[in-house]
């Protein structure tokens, strides 16, 4: 793997840069500063850092209280805990009270590998997307993560950001990372199938598109980092230019990217839709690459499914 920089580290670096000129940025952790790669922020800006201990509900409520007093609160904790354990706090104290809290879900999806279902977050997209006034973002690589965090620092609305634990292969480059807030990024345009992916799955979708091209299948790859608000316009355009739509996500089959894309396609531009995801079950033990390979969520697996789907 070429890239050694995890997206969580990019979040810290970007916040460190922003905090140079913005004393209202505060970072809160629940005994998670190390795993969130936020130790440098705590070391450099102790007056803008808050440790709450292993208390994720407290983490979110305290962040909301601080935000109501003018702070730009970034609360970081494992994605599985900050979303579903603190769900009511996210709903009431952040979303409903409309406080400027950015919830960072670290080690999202199956990043924790062999630690098991308690530590996997395969429900977070569905859970957080169902909350009104909550935005949901899954950046695909380190360059997009930096762009996203810079954009979020500049606004004052609630948001949830999920990143994985380990470095992921780049989708973009330092010089070439097209980014528009709340608009999907067109990684490539094709005519046979539209691959709509989010988070770490974007890289795998790009790999699949390469393999499909070798078979003469032309694939669009849409990086839907903004799961909510979903860029419906891009989905409709991508579906309209192809024969079928395939979604790819590191999430439960229910209520995530696939469900949302299928809603849009079904209503506005009917096409066959195939949703690739984790199963509706505890995932098999393994590292992220092993788990992805097992469930057909790698370039090879996605390409195989797409070819079969188009063939049918």
């Amino acid at each position, binding site marked *: 793997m070429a890239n050694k920089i995890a997206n969580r580290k990019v979040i810290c670096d970007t916040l460190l840069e922003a905090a140079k000129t913005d004393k209202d940025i*505060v970072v809160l952790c629940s005994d998670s500063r190390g795993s969130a790669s936020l130790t440098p922020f705590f070391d450099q800006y102790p*007056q*803008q850092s*808050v440790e*709450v*201990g292993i*208390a994720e*509900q*407290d983490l979110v*409520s*305290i*962040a*909301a*209280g*601080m*935000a*109501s*007093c*003018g*702070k730009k*609160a970034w609360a970081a904790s494992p994605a599985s805990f900050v979303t579903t354990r603190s769900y*009511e*706090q996210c709903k*009431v*104290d952040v979303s*409903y*009270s*409309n406080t400027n809290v950015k919830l960072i879900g670290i080690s999202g999806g199956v990043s924790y590998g062999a630690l098991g279902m308690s530590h996997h977050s395969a429900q977070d997209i569905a859970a957080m997307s169902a909350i009104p006034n909550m935005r949901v973002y899954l950046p695909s690589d380190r360059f997009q993560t930096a762009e996203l965090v810079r954009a979020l620092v500049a606004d004052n609305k609630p948001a949830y950001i999920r990143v994985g634990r380990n470095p992921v292969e780049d989708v973009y480059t330092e010089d070439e990372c097209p980014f528009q807030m709340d608009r999907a990024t067109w990684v490539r345009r094709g005519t046979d199938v539209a691959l709509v992916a989010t988070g770490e799955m974007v890289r795998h979708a790009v790999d699949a598109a390469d393999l499909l091209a070798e078979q003469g299948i032309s694939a669009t790859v849409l990086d839907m980092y903004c799961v909510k608000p979903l860029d419906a316009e891009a989905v409709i355009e991508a579906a309209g230019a192809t024969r079928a739509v395939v979604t790819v996500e590191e999430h439960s089959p229910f209520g995530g990217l696939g469900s949302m894309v299928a809603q849009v396609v079904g209503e506005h531009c009917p096409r066959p839709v195939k949703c690739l995801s984790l199963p509706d079950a505890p995932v098999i033990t393994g590292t992220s690459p092993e788990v992805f390979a097992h469930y057909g969520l790698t370039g090879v697996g996605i390409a195989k499914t797409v070819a079969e789907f188009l063939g049918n």
Partner: protein
Amino acid sequence: MATIEELESLRWDLRRDCVDIIMAGAGGHIGGDMSVIDALMTLYANHLNISPETVDDPNRDRFVLSKGHAMEAYYAVLCHEGYLDLDDVKARFSKFGSPYIGHPNNKLKGIEMNSGSLGHGLPVAVGMALAGKMDGRDYRVYTIMGDGELAEGSVWEGAMSGGNYQLDNLCALVDRNRLQISGSTEDVMKQDSQEERWAAFGWNVLSIPGNDVRAIDAALTLAAETCGKPTVIILNTVKGYGSPVMEDKAAWHHHLPNDEEYAQIIADFAAHKEAING
């Protein structure tokens, strides 16, 4: 600032307003409204550094009604203090499309945070107090919880962090009326030894007769003078306080008086006020 004598009279007017709001909306948490309204009134009258003109002042004191179901009592106080219009609240409370719902709505003037689900107010108040310390502002933060609410684990996460950060700009009040919807708090889930519980979390603890305006006023002053730790005031109250029709009756947790009960309750309030004013 109001004198104790003024507050001892005012509290019967506010209770009447509160019951009238409940009648207008055809429902409300009347028992808890009656137990907590003396503390709400005293807090707003003599302690909170905030007014309808300063609701956006970064130096204002903050208040979070954690037992959000006592909203009708809060409406009565907010109307009296000039944040909301009583006639408008009575006309629209709980009506279709109304902003006056049964729990705090921070789209209304003077309300900082939404609540309703229990166990949120204290951790939120901790965040407000931390932000104040961080910015070197001298505002104070207050929250009021119910005693049944203390069964929520998140209350104790907030208690832990408030004590840990020695937030002496934070004051929590507990409406210890000893009743919740299913009956006695001691039967549902024991809440005894509150003084020892909070002290163990590093809090300054004041336990007072919670429907005694003079005691409430004095305790809030003591809390503001306390350095190095947050204060909790255990308000030992009577649910439904003000009329034997509803006092100390769990069934009145959420109850709409019938015409006869309403007449008796209003008469009892008037008699209390008459006794004060001679």
